[in-house]
């Protein structure tokens, strides 16, 4: 296999003599475009929150800004720390990581802090920690380990079923919190790791068919026979984007208002003249609908800039997939890259009215410590994969 070859070359390089300061800090082999994209996104988030949420918390105009900036700095720090660690260790820790993941998402049922009918997070002294956010990364790290480890055990079909079960167990826990959006990210991350792990196309075809069948079951058959699986609001949110301009009191209202907000920004934005996102017509403007704020305030220029940063982020992530020195790195990078792409597409699509409302935050833009930290840590893992690949290739390529 290609990876084995590359790994052999990499490990055979005994360079450890002339190590500069940049090298010791791991800065030399950092993927700078990736780091810059991540930092630019969180900086733009802080900038946007600073203008859009001045009056949201009475008495403290910088409530969201200060916190988001702090999360960004902590995340940046976490990224640097993780980038210095050889990600391959996570493969060895896969069972522990997986256990921690399942336990943390299960424990919110016991100790969790309930908000809006859902238990998703622990209430910590400084912020509420949502384990499922970090879980997106943990699941990729653990599942990639299981896939590499079990590559030769059982038939291909057994392996596919095993991976699916491993991935869908925590996804199911998250779904029951209930947090439909995050459980979908878990499912997508699982499929992405399996995809890069070489699961056969035919198996994906079967999974795809099963998925279509189950969607039909959940949305059409189950309500028809009187045993609905989704909660009423969930179903409404999932389907209302198909008919958005109905009654203003429906779920479609929020999405319609978000579209008006984005549209009204036109080419260059309305700045402080923005009304849709400033006067509460668009809900959750600091979290799920922050893209609408950007669209209205900064127009096509601002929104396209943000999208471009995500495109840059994804391109670098995908590039790291190709560079990874071992297949564990490939799987981890692939899982992270695809789940980021999925989150960005679903969230922005929701803001633009072409995807349902699922409550998935926009990575690095939406306000929230767990999400920002977890995304930065994921970027840190990507950086680690990049650095390890560079270290192993040093002297052979002049990048």
């Amino acid at each position: 296999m290609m990876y084995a070859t590359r790994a052999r070359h990499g490990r055979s390089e005994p360079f450890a003599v002339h190590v500069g300061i940049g090298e010791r800090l791991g800065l030399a082999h950092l993927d700078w475009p990736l780091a810059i994209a991540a930092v630019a996104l969180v900086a733009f988030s802080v900038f946007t929150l600073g203008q859009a949420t001045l009056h949201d918390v009475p008495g403290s105009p910088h409530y969201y800004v200060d916190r988001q900036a702090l999360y960004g700095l902590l995340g940046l720090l976490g990224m640097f720390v993780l980038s210095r660690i050889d990600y391959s260790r996570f493969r060895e820790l896969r069972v522990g990581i997986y256990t921690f993941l399942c336990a943390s998402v299960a424990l919110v049922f016991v100790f969790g802090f309930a908000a809006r009918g859902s238990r998703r997070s622990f209430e910590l002294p400084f912020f509420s920690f949502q384990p499922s956010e970090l879980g997106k990364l943990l699941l990729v790290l653990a599942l990639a380990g299981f896939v590499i480890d079990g590559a030769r055990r059982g038939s291909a079909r057994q392996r596919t079923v095993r991976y699916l079960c491993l991935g869908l167990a925590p996804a199911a826990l998250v779904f029951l919190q209930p947090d439909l959006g995050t459980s979908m990210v878990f499912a997508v991350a699982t499929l992405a790791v399996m995809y890069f792990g070489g699961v056969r196309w035919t198996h994906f075809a079967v999974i795809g068919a099963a998925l279509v069948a189950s969607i039909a079951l959940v949305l059409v058959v189950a309500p028809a026979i009187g045993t609905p699986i989704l909660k009423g609001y969930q179903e409404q949110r999932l389907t209302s984007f198909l008919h958005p301009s109905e009654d203003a009191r429906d779920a479609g209202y929020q999405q319609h208002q978000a579209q008006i907000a984005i549209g009204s920004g036109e080419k260059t934005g309305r700045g402080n003249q923005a009304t849709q996102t400033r006067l509460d017509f668009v809900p959750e403007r600091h979290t799920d609908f922050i893209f609408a704020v950007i669209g209205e305030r900064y127009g096509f220029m601002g929104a396209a800039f943000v999208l471009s940063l995500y495109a840059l982020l994804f391109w670098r992530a995908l590039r790291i997939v190709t560079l990874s020195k071992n297949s564990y790195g490939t799987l981890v990078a692939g899982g992270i890259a695809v789940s980021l792409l999925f989150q960005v597409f679903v969230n922005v699509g929701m803001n633009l009215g072409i995807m349902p409302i699922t409550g998935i935050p926009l990575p690095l833009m939406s306000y929230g410590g767990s999400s920002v930290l977890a995304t930065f840590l994921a970027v840190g893992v990507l950086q680690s994969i990049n650095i390890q690949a560079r270290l192993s290739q040093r002297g052979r390529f002049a990048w």
Partner: protein
Amino acid sequence: MALRIAVVGGVAVALFAVLFLRLWDLQVVSGAESLAEAQNNRTREYRVVAPRGEILDRDGNVLVANRTSLALQLNTQKLPADPAEERAELTRLGSLAHMSLKKVRKTIREQEEVAAGAPITLRRDVGYDLVYYLQENQRRFPGVQVQTVFVRSYPDGSRAAHVLGSVGEVSEEELREPAYKSLVPGDEVGKGGVEYTYDRYLRGKPGLTRIQVNALGQPTPGGQLVSEQPVPGDNLKLSLDPEVQAAGESALAAQGLRGAFITMNVHNGEILGLGSFPTYDPSVFTRPLTQAQVNSLYLDEVAAPLTDRATSGLYPTGSTFKLITAMAALEGGVITPQKTIFDSGSITVGGQKFSNAGGAAFGSVDLVNALRVSSDVYFYELGLKMWNTGQLQRWASKLGIGRPTGIDLPEQAEGLVPSKQWRDQLYREGETERPWSAGDNIQLATGQGDLQTNPLQMAIAYATVANGGTVVTPHVGMEIQDPAGRVLKEFAPKPRRHVHINRVYRDAILAGLHEAAQSPGGTSFGVFGNFPVAVAGKTGTAERTGHGDQSWYVVLAPYPNPRIVTAVTTEEGGFGAESAAPAALQILEAYFHKHPTGAAGPNGGSPG
């Protein structure tokens, strides 16, 4: 593996392309529409009603003012869409307004028929406690608002009700007329009287407040975007003289007879007093009518309190018409003032006998005496002489009988002067059993028969003779003043036309009328004999089929150079001297108490 990575890359390119295209579509292609929608989203416009102008009498006393009132209003478009929720809200609202759910729905239905889409006024004059309660519980009452509205108030109750008219919400038909094009459903306009005629002056210009609101419809800080102050309507000063008006109304009310009066300046047509009995209090229209009020205002066809009998009543006039007959005969050369006619008590024409009232016979009488004693036979002879010349009808029309007067009040009846053409036409159509005959003209000569007119037209006819031939345009509107009292416009409508009247004839007729009122043997000497101002007045007693006699009195004062004319009529009032003349006396007493003339005495006459 390269394939798999390439596939993911391809999918990513596709997804980003979708996002970019959608973004382009929303912001660049259709951004302007969204911007308009966003602007519309965040603003609420409130019309601020302008108070209507006040209506004053000629002395500046307020006849119609405004008071503010809190109205409980409901915007039906903001009601919950769910029928059960809507029902619950209407029930809650009903209990606040002390109305049953059924009543609430009925009110909504009724007002939506008149002005669909306008806020429904459930109740006026609500208390402040209700306002505070609604403010605290605003979320439970979507679409409910309390608005300050101006309500007409009438300090003197029913005073001059028929002149003033009332206000009401503009109707759908009215909204289509150009005069109301700046209005919206729910606006108030004049619905009768001078409120209608002078609506464009009285009506103010509503102000507009556009405020910025958030998604909950709550005003946001510093969100007042536009504010146009409402412009109050201008005040209307009427020519009504408060003493004359009060005297006329109380005279009619004291007699309790259905009737009307008018007092007018003979030179310029200014109306000093105009009233009709029974009357009503216009303030009943400021709140929903009760069934009892509907019954008494609209369904009682005999009393018909809303009808202004002075301008819209139609009656034969009895002997008060003799002024017109005399004028026609004199100007037509049928008689001279000195010509005497022998009054044997009756004449017989075509087998029909026409007698004096009460079987009297006055012997040989000239014009003055004929008027003094109201000799019917004298005028029967005149009617007979002119029976097919059309002269009498022409003069009646010249003096304004049976034709529009041009008065500045919306309602008026044209009336009818029966003529040969009119009856012959009816006869040809089979509407009547006989063509025009001498008897018809004999009846007309004494104001009986088919003649239909009203105090307004009679006052004009008398004024025209008195002033020497000017047919004035009667009017109550005198001035438009701004709210500070500065005069913006004065109304002095041009005379309708001029009629040539021989001064000698005019003097003779007035002399006859003067003697009728104030010389012994005159028909109203009993009433005006002791009145200190010289007057010229004529009684009238008209027979109405199916009714008691219509009592009339028309008087010019002071004699011989009258300033005012007063016409009074009462239904089923008996002889003119019985009810109409005493009422006219009260009016003149009030007028001359206020505007004394230099001279006095029943036979004296005023100088100049």
